[in-house]
């Protein structure tokens, strides 16, 4: 069996990472990239539903959202924004390293991206911990005392659902980057084959893009 496979590969002289149903590396790259963009569109619409819900509730209850957002730590939010922007930069530098066959730099940038993602989740952990202690929780679970403006639980419903879903995406991205890291160490990627690095990069930038909107909408209401 393996002998037969080897023979077939030898006959066609396949590039090692070309799937048999594509005619060439460029076609494979373009097709998978389009697939990734279509997936990103579904992600935009997934978060879109939450953004629309947020828009409606904030338009209807501006005072509640205004009062509730003061419970968020603006410094931590800004710090996380910077961390995520830097991680996007290190990710795109990883793509560049793969495009130019710089294996060591690729590994370095992937590790840096993972570190940034870990920092983001660490800061998020402390923020969530603070909210749990204060009882600033969604809907029925909201037990914060001494509010002067009613309805603040609505803000925290959106806060936890949106940043929570975003957090899951960060975790998913970290898994994908770990997979890239293993393949990069194995030496899979070079100027002739860097598709997976590019595609995971696109996903990671989308996670960054969503945070770019979440940050002003959650932390900077005024």
């Amino acid at each position, binding site marked *: 069996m393996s002998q037969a496979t080897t023979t077939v590969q030898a006959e066609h002289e396949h590039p090692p990472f070309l799937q048999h149903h594509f005619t060439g590396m460029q076609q494979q790259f373009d097709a998978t990239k*389009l697939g990734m963009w279509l997936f990103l569109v579904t992600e*935009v619409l997934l978060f*879109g539903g939450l953004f629309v819900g947020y828009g409606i509730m904030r338009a209807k209850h501006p005072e509640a959202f205004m009062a509730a957002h003061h419970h968020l730590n603006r410094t931590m939010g800004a710090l996380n924004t910077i961390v995520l922007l830097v991680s996007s930069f290190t990710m795109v530098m990883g793509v560049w390293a793969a495009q130019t066959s710089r294996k060591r730099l690729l590994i370095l940038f992937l590790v840096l991206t993972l570190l940034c993602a870990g920092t983001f989740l660490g800061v998020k952990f402390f923020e969530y911990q603070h909210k749990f202690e204060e009882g600033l929780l969604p809907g029925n679970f909201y037990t914060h005392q001494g509010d002067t403006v009613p*309805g603040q639980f609505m803000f925290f419903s959106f806060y936890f659902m949106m940043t929570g879903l975003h957090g899951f995406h960060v975790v998913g991205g970290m898994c994908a980057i770990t997979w890239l890291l293993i393949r990069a160490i194995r030496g899979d990627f070079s100027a002739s084959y860097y598709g997976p690095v590019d595609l995971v*990069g696109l996903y990671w930038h989308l996670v*960054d893009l969503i945070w*770019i*909107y979440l940050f002003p909408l959650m932390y900077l209401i005024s």
Partner: protein
Amino acid sequence: MEHTAHQHPITGPKVYAAVLAALLVLTVITVTAAGVDFGPYNTVIALIIATIKASLVALFFMHLRHDKFDAIVFLGGVFFLAVFLIFTLFDINSRHTILPSNLKEPVKEFPGAPLNKPVQPSTGTAPVAVPGK
């Protein structure tokens, strides 16, 4: 392997570093702008800055400036999100009350609110319409 040459020149670290610097400056600007009172325009300004940042990420980090076809696909998704958002807000803003259609009068307590903190139903900023007919 017929197309081993790249269709587009590879963007280098200098451009990426410049984009990162611009993104960080815009972050500082948006935080500063949030501290200044522009009345109702604060949210608009914050969203415009966010959109500039998002465009920078999409055009440079996601390479959309060299990738017309995927740019159209992505903007198609954004377009439908805009339709979703704008038409929903039109609908919501043209109503006095947001209530399930099977309710005959406004609820006195929001279903999700804790019992010790009564909350007005989602009646918006307009005065509550008399729920007739």
